[in-house]
């Protein structure tokens, strides 16, 4: 599968000249590349100049989800503090960093999954298309429909493939003229249709790990979300399945906004347009709090990060 759209992705960094110490970084990234795009967009140089609100190929950056001074508490424990982020429409944004820095915690705030954890509390604001996600009048169910989530461990229901996909529309009370079409469309978009079209009524649990994860993506797509959150979606998959999902992500970004948390920074470099780097501070009492260190175009983060901690993580000095 070729990458259809113009992306100032790291696959093009090899063409960007860099100073001495950075070359090491690039070579390791280059080793992780799977394909290079035929187009080397001019915009790469724009991106590497570090402009935060820059665009590529003339596309405006429109923030779908924005956080302002976000802190998340579990009871009295402050898991993450003072996070300011924005996530661009139809972009893939990656959140990277060592474990325990609050990336997943923040991710779960976007679709209010943290509500399900007793004692979880949010301070600061998260806006979705300008609306406060945690406002009193907000319908959590609707939020979750529009902001979908794919989990680290694929979690298909113990039902048939068909019923898995149909679950979302049914549960949201949709009256569709043809559920079959909905199912087919979702599976096609998730690049799974050809593999399962003859066994829709079979149990979803019979699929391989990679297929199950794509099923979960299809399930998520079936409710027509706007944003898709992915919490380490490839963590339990083999490399081949992983690359299939990464290809899928790039396709999906045409229609959805994608936010992915990943431990695999090469993956972030491969796949994302923008990257946010998290780390954990330890305060005077020895308690860890997660914080956002820096967020920028992926290209810049991996070639010329502003913060030395980012540089340390990227070059493998810690993490």
């Amino acid at each position, binding site marked *: 599968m070729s990458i259809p759209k113009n992306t100032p992705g790291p696959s093009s960094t090899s063409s960007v000249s860099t100073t001495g110490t950075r070359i090491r970084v690039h070579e390791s990234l280059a080793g992780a590349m799977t394909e290079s795009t035929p187009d080397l967009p001019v915009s790469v140089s724009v991106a590497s100049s570090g402009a935060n609100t820059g665009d590529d190929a003339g596309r405006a950056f429109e923030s779908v989800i924005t956080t302002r001074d976000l802190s998340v508490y579990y009871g009295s424990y402050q898991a993450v503090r003072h996070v300011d982020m924005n996530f661009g429409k139809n972009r893939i944004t990656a959140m990277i960093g060592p474990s325990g820095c609050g990336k997943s915690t923040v991710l779960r705030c976007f679709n209010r999954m943290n509500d399900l954890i007793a004692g979880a509390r949010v301070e600061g604001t998260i806006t979705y298309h300008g609306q406060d*996600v945690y406002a009193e009048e907000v319908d959590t169910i609707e939020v979750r429909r529009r902001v979908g989530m794919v989990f680290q461990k694929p979690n298909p229901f113990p039902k048939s493939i068909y019923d898995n996909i149909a679950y979302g529309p049914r549960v949201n009370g*949709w009256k*569709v003229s*043809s559920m079959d079409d*909905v199912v087919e469309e979702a599976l096609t978009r998730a690049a799974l249709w050809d593999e399962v079209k003859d066994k829709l009524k079979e149990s979803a649990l019979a699929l391989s790990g990679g297929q199950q994860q794509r099923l979960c993506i299809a399930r998520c797509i079936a409710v027509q*979300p706007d944003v898709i959150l992915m919490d380490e979606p490839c963590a339990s998959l083999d490399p081949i399945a992983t690359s299939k999902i990464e290809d899928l992500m790039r396709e999906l970004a045409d229609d959805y906004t994608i936010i992915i948390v990943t431990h695999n920074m090469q993956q972030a470099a491969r796949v994302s347009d923008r990257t946010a780097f998290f780390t954990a501070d330890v305060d005077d009492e020895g308690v860890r709090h997660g914080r956002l260190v820096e967020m920028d175009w992926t290209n810049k983060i991996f070639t010329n990060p502003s913060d030395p901690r980012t540089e340390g993580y990227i070059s493998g000095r810690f993490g």
Partner: protein
Amino acid sequence: MTITAPPPPPSPATPAARPLLKATGEPLRERAFKWMLWFCMAVGLVTLVVLLVYVFIRGWGALDTRLVTNMPSSVLPATAGAQSAITGTLWLMVFTAIWAMPTGILAAIYLEEYGDPTRWYNRVIEINILNLAAVPSIVFGILGLAFISRGLGFGPTILTGSITLALLVLPIVVIASREAIRAVPQSIRAGSLALGATRWQTVYRQVLPAAIPGIATGAILALSRAIGEAAPLLMLGVSFVRFNPDGLMSTFTALPVQIYNWTTESRPEYTELAAAASVVLLVLLLAMNSVAIYIRNKTQRRW
């Protein structure tokens, strides 16, 4: 509140994003469901409360020292007491424990520490124990009747009763003891063995002491079950007795049997006595379970 119907089957670039996030109260259907579930819980709990209150009130008139000091009488309800039943129950429990505890604990030790779970006979034993745990108590009564009461000719004595009840609760003791033993971490066993102890020494000196709280709780559970059983005792021929037991071979009566007898008496005064005896039985149960809870809380292991 109805749920919104979204746009018809998807076209790729449908802007599902823009419309306002709508606020809805928890729709009626959801709340009704929740109430229905609460109702399910409530029925059980309410009945429990009603039962306890009823028994207590009904037996109020007979709840005095007479109950403990006097013997049951089928002639004069006014002076009847339940002493023989109370002492009978106590005797019965002591011996049931004596038969059931060692047997059960040893069996549990065997199954957990020595038995190879892949061997077919061990698996048969396991399944047997699970089955036994669910066999109706009256079948145990049949067993006791056939073999011990009539077969061995002992008749309805403390011995017969306690053995029958011991067999009844044996599975409970085994299962609870196994859980307790299983909860002891492997590291303790490994440490002991590494120091040169034999298997038995490890079990006897390390595992068992650690598992005692769980085993004790299991014992109390078992006795709680045994104390309330009437059916097997009735099967054995236990009935009306006006003296305290004086030995293993003594016939006896027990609280559950006495309650049954008094309930089936036609005269209404006896209903009061039955209720009072029920209260005594419940109090005994409460005491036993409080001890169990106390043990459990006091020995929350910090593995």
